[in-house]
């Protein structure tokens, strides 16, 4: 029997607010333990939550970004469970009336096609603290700095059929939320954590199989691996005639496996009820419209515009619009040199190549965008060849100045002086009687190949500085 994989994802996205969702404590990452946990975060008696306007606005921005219905009236609820890193004994979340309703997400796949998945909902909630189980001799250490950090939980329909689709969605989602500026998207710091709901069913059937939930996977690579492991595990059980136990599992990256997390999960009853300490959140059309006006250009719009406006291939447009930062860099380069296609090529090959080699993020790139634009302008106006430009780029990367200064200092200006080139060509021809004879004996088709030898020799003689177009023209004349 063949089986179909069915996956739905829940992403917990940390919102990039300065302060917590219900208190005025800072949300900065990496502060010493409990220095950003105040009376509200610690659940001292009598403390009351006050909702952060920016967290609400970020949620609405996300909703508009995926074309979802915005809950004009949304309600907070208490989700009750006991764990020491949740001092209130409940998490303030949203249950029946979330701030973001149904939406849609189009994900580009590697083969150039797209896959549309449904967003079920997205709701605001607070994060819990952190439990540290080691080093305390039979005790657990609690750090509540993270308690109360605003989260947007984004839930999808079970619309994924492969690990590739799931990862493609997460990458697009990451791109969208960083474009919107609502999250730093830093997965290593836990800004984007993913729960995977996975089940198998016989191909061609509609009914869903029993699923397992893999909690808190925090990198694209681990999501892919966890799905591969878990689907293979379920397949083994089903093919042996067994049945899947509905349970929560944990992905262990060190062992590359998932394993059962809690045996007590049976009694998982969160006893949701409306949070009496918060009133319903209500906004009008004018508010939603104002947020809509403030949205930046979204990744897929930018991708489309790059393809149309700069006549880039879909692939190039996708790579260059992947992050807002890279897109801005590319556009600045294109503006400064006036040649978008060459700019696209240079940014993707030379710039990204160098950044990759040096393991640097774009934000620490030593060559600013206008400077790279200036270099490309020297190629297009014929001052230097593309080959020499790479040399100049190296020098720019090493902080030796801008393109013009380097070309001047190193004497790299292209030789476009006809007389000078002609004498070089004459020398080359005189020194290559065999090749000349070969050339003269050849037919037109072969001649095109043989001329390459002469061009190469002239370029060598000029140390790469001869204007290649001119060399070709002059050679054609001399050899005919």
């Amino acid at each position, binding site marked *: 029997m063949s089986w179909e994989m069915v996956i739905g994802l829940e992403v917990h996205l940390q919102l990039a607010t300065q*302060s917590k969702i219900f208190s005025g404590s800072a949300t900065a990452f990496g502060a010493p333990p409990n*220095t950003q946990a105040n009376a509200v975060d610690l659940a001292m008696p009598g403390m009351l939550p006050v909702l952060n306007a920016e967290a609400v606005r970020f949620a609405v921005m996300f909703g508009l970004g995926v074309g979802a219905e915005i809950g004009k009236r949304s309600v907070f609820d208490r989700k009750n469970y006991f764990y020491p890193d949740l001092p209130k004994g409940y998490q303030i979340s949203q249950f029946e009336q979330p701030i973001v309703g149904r939406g849609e997400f189009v994900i580009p796949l590697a083969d150039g096609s797209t896959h549309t998945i449904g967003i079920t909902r997205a709701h605001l909630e607070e994060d819990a603290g952190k439990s540290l189980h080691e080093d305390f001799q039979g005790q657990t250490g609690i750090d509540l700095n993270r308690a109360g950090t605003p989260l947007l939980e984004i839930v999808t329909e079970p619309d994924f059929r492969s690990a590739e689709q799931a990862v493609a969605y997460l990458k697009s989602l990451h791109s969208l939320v960083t474009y919107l500026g609502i999250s730093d998207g830093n997965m290593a710091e836990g800004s984007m954590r993913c729960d995977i709901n996975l089940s198998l069913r016989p191909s061609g059937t509609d009914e869903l199989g029993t699923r397992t939930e893999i909690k808190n996977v925090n990198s694209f690579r681990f999501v892919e691996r966890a799905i591969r492991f878990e689907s293979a595990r379920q397949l083994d059980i089903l093919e042996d005639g067994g049945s899947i136990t509905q349970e929560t599992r944990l992905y262990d990256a060190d062992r590359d496996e998932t394993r059962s997390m809690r045996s007590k999960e049976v009694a998982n009853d969160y006893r949701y009820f409306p949070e009496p300490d918060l009133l319903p959140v209500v906004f009008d059309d004018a508010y939603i419209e104002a947020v809509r006006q403030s949205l930046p250009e979204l990744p897929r719009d930018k991708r489309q515009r790059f393809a149309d406006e700069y006549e880039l291939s879909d692939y190039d447009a996708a790579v260059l619009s992947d992050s807002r930062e890279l897109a801005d860099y590319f556009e600045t380069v294109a503006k400064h040199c006036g040649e978008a296609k060459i700019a696209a090529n240079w940014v993707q090959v030379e710039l990204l190549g160098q950044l990759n080699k040096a393991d640097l993020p774009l934000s620490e790139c030593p060559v600013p965008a206008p400077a790279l634009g200036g270099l490309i302008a020297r190629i297009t106006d014929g001052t230097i060849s593309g080959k020499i430009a790479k040399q100049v780029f190296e020098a720019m990367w090493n902080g030796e100045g801008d393109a013009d200064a380097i070309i001047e200092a190193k004497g790299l200006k292209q030789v476009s002086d006809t007389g000078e080139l002609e004498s070089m060509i004459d020398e080359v021809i005189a020194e290559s009687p065999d090749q000349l004879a070969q050339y003269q004996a050849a037919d037109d088709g072969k001649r095109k190949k043989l001329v390459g030898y002469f061009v190469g020799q002239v370029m060598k003689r000029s140390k790469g500085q001869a204007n290649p177009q001119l060399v070709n023209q002059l050679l054609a004349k001399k050899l005919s």
Partner: protein
Amino acid sequence: MSIAEDDIAQIADLARIRIAPEQVAEVTDSIGRILTLADQLQAVDTTGVEPMANPHDAVQRLRDDVVTETNQREAFQAIAPAVESGLYLVPQVID
């Protein structure tokens, strides 16, 4: 709706409440009576009545996203039963 003594044990476990064995019958009875009251409320026809999230006829005011709190860890940890390296210590909870 009635409730069995087994349910009481499970609810008590979820709520982290310890109920002595000799109390179970009494608690089962009193919770059963509360549920009977709930049944009466459930029976009321609420067609056309909007669910009420809060009795106040008001909407939530929002706070500007500004950090207003300073670090008061010393003060808070002074009243904690056990702390170490800035962490609050609790009995081990890992499964």
